[in-house]
């Protein structure tokens, strides 16, 4: 066993982790630990853009962005944090540009912006160009740029180290334990502050846009150490995943004028969101698609619809909707222009479907996409551990693993990249400030004991069960019963099934006894995390008897602010879940009916 000492340890090297590492390392001795090489992180898969009210094409304001985000969250987002994020957004995007990020440009050479779901001109209600983009690989450019800046600033990286445990004792953090993939050796990182930035858990569901790496490690790790998880019932299903594969087709396609069509060729979003139509919030569009498919209007009676961005369709609906270019001229796009704005999407469709989106519609279905819930934090990235938001000294979280909460019950597109840049930065700054006045808490006598115990269990089961079978059963029932639409009956069955799978999981036995890149052992450990998350998600969802944002219940179809305008908190204690609630912060915007 090796022991290292750093003042700040960042776990995860996606956008949030890199931003935290960049800022913390300015004044504190910092290490960034990641199970992947940083450039493999899932931030790199984000496509459409990062939201900021720059107003480079048309009038826009941070206040409008704030209101849109509050409304998008179905009023569950904490308004003080949302206001903070949307104000910081503008400077954050300029800062990325100053770091060299190659944004697309307007004819005047400013950062180019495109419309995105739920982002509006608050006076007219019409879509506004707010998403700052670099083609359809904005996340890739953010990830690359931040990694490059970390190299420039000589940040310490531990690549391909899987963190297994956060050391928390007597109300203090003393570091983390990680296994080095290449050697199988356990490493203890003694630290004054730990920043969790490990991303989400979208691999809980069968159809998902998420990477294999998205296994809820960070949430599972802290929950085993007594930290609560917030709003875990809220998970976003993105409307447009490639049929059966779940690979994301950016909302930017609809931002560029693409429309959803059913088997009758009807552009059905008219009916569900008369003002912004195809650019309604993701939860709204995903539900509309489910209803269309249920009414047998899926293509060929199957569970998919068409997303059409061919120039004739785009131009036709632009005219019908009265949309024009920024200079007022009619929209007449060509195949070439679509190609230059959405090159990766076109490549995905050609590769995986043999479909050319310039001339053919794309078959799409809703796909599991984004974790709104997570480790509760305040707007400085400090982890807060009770109903009164008491901060836990030395523990921070940022990005998708965290729940600030700025996304509430439904996240707006482009706000995830914004979230990780803004809160990654502030978590880094706060942690660096904290360590200046803090001592190292003593390490436990045997720091790696709990990590070793978790691995040992996976090696000593009877071998009656197969990890992959358990995973597939979990993914199927979670997609069917704890997906876009939910009901008491389905969720009870799902919870019973997940509990059964957790029992059966004790019977798995990892065959590979080696130390070097034992990916069988690591994948099994990750599956344990996913099962724990599936349990917390389902229990939280079952308890919330209303419909709000991404949590749509057939048995309670209305939002119920009287009873449920509150955040869920779940603790795992001695194998049992304890559920409690805390109030939502409301500043300027009183909840009202959410119509697009």
């Amino acid at each position, binding site marked *: 066993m090796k022991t290292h000492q750093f003042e700040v340890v960042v776990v995860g090297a996606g956008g949030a982790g890199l931003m935290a590492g960049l800022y913390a390392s300015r004044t504190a001795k910092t290490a960034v630990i990641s199970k*992947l*090489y940083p*450039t*493999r*992180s*899932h931030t*790199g*898969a984000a496509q459409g853009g990062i939201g900021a009210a720059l107003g480079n094409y048309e009038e826009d304001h941070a206040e409008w962005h704030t209101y849109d985000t509050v409304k998008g969250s179905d009023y569950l987002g904490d308004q003080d944090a949302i206001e903070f994020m949307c104000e910081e957004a503008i*400077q954050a995007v*300029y800062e990325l*540009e*100053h*770091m*060299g990020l*190659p*944004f*697309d*440009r*307007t*004819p*005047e*050479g*400013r*950062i180019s912006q495109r419309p995105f779901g739920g982002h509006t001109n608050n006076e007219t209600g019409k879509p506004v160009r707010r998403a700052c983009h*670099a*083609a359809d*690989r904005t996340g*890739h*450019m953010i990830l*690359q*740029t931040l990694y*490059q*800046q970390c*190299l*420039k600033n000589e940040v310490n990286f531990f690549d391909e180290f899987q963190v297994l445990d956060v050391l928390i004792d007597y109300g203090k953090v003393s570091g983390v334990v990680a296994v080095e993939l*290449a050697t199988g050796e356990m490493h203890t990182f003694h630290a004054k502050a730990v920043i969790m930035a490990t991303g989400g858990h979208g691999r809980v569901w069968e159809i998902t846009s998420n*990477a*294999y*790496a998205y296994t809820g490690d960070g949430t599972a790790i802290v929950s085993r150490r007594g930290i609560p998880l917030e709003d875990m019932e809220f998970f976003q299903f993105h409307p447009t995943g490639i049929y059966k*594969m779940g*690979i994301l087709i950016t909302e930017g396609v609809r931002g560029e004028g693409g429309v959803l069509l059913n088997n009758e060729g009807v552009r059905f979003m008219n009916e569900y969101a008369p003002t912004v139509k195809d650019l309604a919030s993701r939860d709204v569009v995903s539900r509309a698609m489910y209803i269309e498919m249920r009414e047998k209007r899926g293509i060929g009676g199957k569970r998919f619809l068409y997303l059409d961005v061919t120039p004739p369709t785009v131009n036709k609906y632009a005219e019908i909707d009265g949309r024009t270019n920024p200079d007022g001229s009619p929209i007449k796009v060509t195949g070439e222009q679509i190609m230059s704005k959405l090159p*990766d999407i076109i*490549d*995905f469709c050609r*590769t*995986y479907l043999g479909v050319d989106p310039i001339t053919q519609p794309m078959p799409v279905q809703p796909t599991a996409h984004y974790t709104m819930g997570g480790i509760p934090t305040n707007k400085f990235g400090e982890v807060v551990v009770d109903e009164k938001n008491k901060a836990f000294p030395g523990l921070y979280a940022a990005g998708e693993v965290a729940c600030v909460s700025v996304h509430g019950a439904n996240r707006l597109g482009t706000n995830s990249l914004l979230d990780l840049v803004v809160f990654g930065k502030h978590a880094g700054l706060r942690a660096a400030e904290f360590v200046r006045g803090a001592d190292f808490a003593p390490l436990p006598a045997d720091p790696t004991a709990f990590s070793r115990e978790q691995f040992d269990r996976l090696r000593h089961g009877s071998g009656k069960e*197969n*990890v*992959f079978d358990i995973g597939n059963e979990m993914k199927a029932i979670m997609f069917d019963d704890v997906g876009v639409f939910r009901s008491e009956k389905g969720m009870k069955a799902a919870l019973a099934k997940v509990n059964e799978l957790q029992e059966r999981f004790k019977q798995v036995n*990892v*065959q*590979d006894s*080696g*130390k*070097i*890149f*034992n*990916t*069988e052992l690591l994948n099994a450990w990750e599956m344990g995390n996913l099962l724990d998350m599936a349990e917390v998600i389902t229990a939280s969802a079952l308890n919330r008897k209303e419909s709000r944002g991404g949590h749509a219940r057939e048995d309670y179809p209305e939002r119920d602010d009287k009873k449920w305008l509150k955040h869920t908190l779940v603790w795992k204690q001695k194998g049992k879940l304890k559920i409690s609630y805390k109030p939502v912060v409301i500043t300027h915007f009183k909840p009202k009916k959410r119509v697009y």
Partner: protein
Amino acid sequence: MDVTLKIFRYNPEKDQKWHYESYTLEAEPTDRVLDVLEKVKAYHDGSLSFRRSCAHGVCGSDAMRINGRNMLACKVLVKDVGNAITLEPLLGLKVIKDLIVDMEPFFDNYKKVLPFFINESPIPKDGKERIQSPEARARFDDTTKCILCAACTTSCPSFWGNEEYLGPAALVNAHRFIFDDRDESAPERLHLLSNASGVTRCHTTFNCTMACPREIQITKAIGELKLAMVTGKLE
């Protein structure tokens, strides 16, 4: 359909020497090669090791030799490579276990070309973005697409022959900054590339361009670097 995978196997904790193992299993023609690999791991041999993450060609984890050519296992379908598929680790980097190679020398080369934006001039007074024309932005668009998967570098005979050679991926990333008109360190980078480990080792075999899963015109980019070095101009 039935697919037979012939996979390069090497476990340094058990094997004296590498060998191949074959697995025959059911697959859909539209399955990714990665999907089939996952199935082998799930139901035939859990110890089979390979890297993967995003599974749709943007993270760069699963570059490997598929029927002799460098590809991402998640970006090629069974129907495109046939039902006899040979999978081997990338060439030119040390094999650690099965399909996993040591990526450190690859990243070390990348780090040598100053792969980060350098502009020490003050930002605009209004705090906003630096202005860049759409044409100037387009000048280096192609090389911003690199995902550092190493498919290009490990397909390059010059790299196989000389570990000191920076390799196409590092050059692509140098190009990305050299041709960005906001960046101020083009001369320094061009100087770095002018020595024996730099662009002169490229013999335009085009293997890199053929291998790139992001379809970057790598040989062209390296040609532009050579030209800039000779003329001292960035065109």
